């Protein structure tokens, strides 16, 4: 299973962190710092896998963002690389040519998309269509929810 997934920029800013096991906040911070340092130091031609503590790290860079997953000893590295790619495809489809800013300003959406796709560190559904449909359905629900707010309401005057 996947233990965690991190998205961070070249400058070391964490944009998304999803943890699939209960970990103390202090430990999370330390692991993130440690791993970011290691991954950011790697050169472009190096392979996408490395061993870290008792886990395997699979990472790939897309534009300005590093997608970094930690999987267990017996997990398949190549397929994890494609899990990352699938996630990027989903983000891309949803946001339309996704860029880092989209993930910064719509961070909660990025988490929702990830949750439709992975759960408990395992893949739920690998059909791009199914996952996107599920996300779009929830967006539709959202629009139904949002009863139109008048300008006065928005300004807190009614």
């Amino acid at each position, binding site marked *: 299973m996947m233990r965690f997934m991190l998205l961070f920029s070249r400058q070391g800013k964490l944009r998304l962190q999803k943890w699939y096991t209960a970990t103390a906040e202090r430990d999370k911070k330390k692991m993130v710092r440690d791993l970011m340092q290691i991954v950011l130091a790697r050169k472009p031609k190096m392979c996408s896998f490395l061993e870290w503590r008792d886990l395997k790290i699979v990472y790939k860079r897309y534009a300005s963002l590093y997608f970094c997953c930690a999987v267990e000893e017996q997990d398949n590295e190549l*397929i994890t690389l494609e899990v990352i*790619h699938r996630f990027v495809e989903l983000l891309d489809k949803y946001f339309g040519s996704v860029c880092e800013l989209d993930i910064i300003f719509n961070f909660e959406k990025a988490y929702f998309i990830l949750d439709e796709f992975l759960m408990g560190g395992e893949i739920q559904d690998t059909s791009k269509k199914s996952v996107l449909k599920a996300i779009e359905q929830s967006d539709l629900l959202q629009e139904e929810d949002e009863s139109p707010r008048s300008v006065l309401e928005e300004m807190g005057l009614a």
Partner: protein
Amino acid sequence: MPAVSKGDGMRGLAVFISDIRNCKSKEAEIKRINKELANIRSKFKGDKALDGYSKKKYVCKLLFIFLLGHDIDFGHMEAVNLLSSNKYTEKQIGYLFISVLVNSNSELIRLINNAIKNDLSSRNPTFMCLALHCIANVGSREMAEAFASEIPRILVAGDTMDSVKQSAALCLLRLYKTSPDLVLMGEWTSRVVHLLNDQHMGVVTAAISLITCLSQKNPDEFKTCVSLAVSRLSRIVSSASTDLQDYTYYFVPAPWLSCKLLRLLQCYPPPEDGAVKGRLVECLETILNKAQEPPKSKKVQHSNAKNAILFEAISLIIHYDSEPNLLVRACNQLGQFLQHRETNLRYLALESMCTLASSEFSHEAVKTHIETVINALKTERDVSVRQRAADLLYAMCDRSNAKQIVAEMLSYLETADYSIREEMVLKVAILAEKYAVDYSWYVDTILNLIRIAGDYVSEEVWYRVIQIVINRDDVQGYAAKTVFEALQAPACHENMVKVGGYILGEFGNLIAGDPRSSPLVQFNLLHSKFHLCSVPTRALLLSAYIKFINLFPETKTTIQEVLRCDSQIRNSDVELQQRAVEYLKLSSIASTDVLATVLEEMPPFPERESSILAKLKKKKGPGAVSVTELEDNKREGGELNGGADRGPDSAAMAAKNRPMSNFSTHCHSGKITNNR
């Protein structure tokens, strides 16, 4: 542009995020955050009840602040309130908050569990999925207690929607991992296995993960999954790429599902049923064949997916370890990958071959690639790939290639990354001992290790070489001579001084005949390093000096003068001072006979498993050292005693009454005879 920027955007949130991004310094950021926190606090405490939208917005802001790395100590109540909203987005944010900021307050837990319970029984699939997600994300004991019996029911109920089944399967998996005692096997288990036959591939994908985990702990209960898995795999592998439509990924049919099925099969031995086994072997052969066909697409995603399946199939073949034909084919395939353009594939091939090397069927086949692997060790630019090559050399090492491999590993060690040196040192030490036919080669190797990577040579390694030299008559003279030469080097590592000091102390007499290594020369050599060494090494050297007095009476005056000087007998370190004083006294008052008895040659060490192996295992985890290797070492531990019959003398010597209270620690350098 985001598809959902139509009016929902939580404008206040976007503004806040912009503000943070525009902060020029850390202090400015903290200031802005504190301002916002104060604002939110007042809104939450205010008399006016907040509407759902505002609550959602503020909870989302808190979440953002938390994810930036700041601590949040309020907002949980409001998030929990959001859970009971009927509006989907509000619920969603509420669930996200409590999944990320897990709180152990029991009142909150009770409320959260209540909300989850309501959503689970709501019959609304989207709400049910949200609730299941939350349970899977948090996976706490309290949630397991509340829901562990409910989830299996949802999973196998006929009227559950596919999307909910998927979520239920993975949710149950999480609960099983964190609280296995609360997930009881029951009538649902056989129904779960049949999910492998479900029409919806997403359900199958999710169910397999669950079944794989359950099978590992309850193999008998779930063994019917094997034949179902084989037939599912067979259907996928033989399907055309257009059959599976949505589940085809860059022209590869259902790669995730295939990998998971192959993984599931690795939880069981090869199928006993002939027909099932036949079908599976056919599958594996098809997968291996496909690897040789020209690719359907140039995209890296296609080749990654295809190769992911191939590597998993190879893992299965290795796991079975019973089909020589498949094993050889797997080995050849990996051999091809060893020279592939893509670094990832070279890395994985080296990794896979390591496991293959321990199979008796393919060990010889793996060895044929030794030149390629050595070349990889020398020329690969990526340090992680070089490390894999080193691991593979270690795994493929046996009597026939030990000398070559140890030599390569030593030369690699000279330029290796500091982070991996200690492990490399342990491995070289283990190989040198295990495959030594000629123990002078072993001694040379260890001394080379100390010379090249002295800082990383742990105690276990140099204790071991001393143990072996003590136990083997045939190598003692050689060891003395080699160590003497090594100490001539102007800058030699402290570990070398330790080993040298000990060995010369015990066996210096074997080379004392040659004027170039006469007793005084030996003493001066050791003493020249004395002031450069740490306290434990000096303590060891002092013991060597007293042994010299016994071995070479002509050195007595010189050595006594050294012992007598203030820097020794008034040394601020208690141990050094005590040794200097006691040795001085011993040398003055003991008769030659008594001295000879007290400082008699060290008796051989009892047979014992090498602590080096234990240290390597501890360092790398249980997977690093195979069980057979450990057993081999136990058997070969007999060689420690070098076949020379020490007989009753050793027992007598060991029982000799030492006149001074802690003399035994002095002679035995503190730790060598203790079982660590």
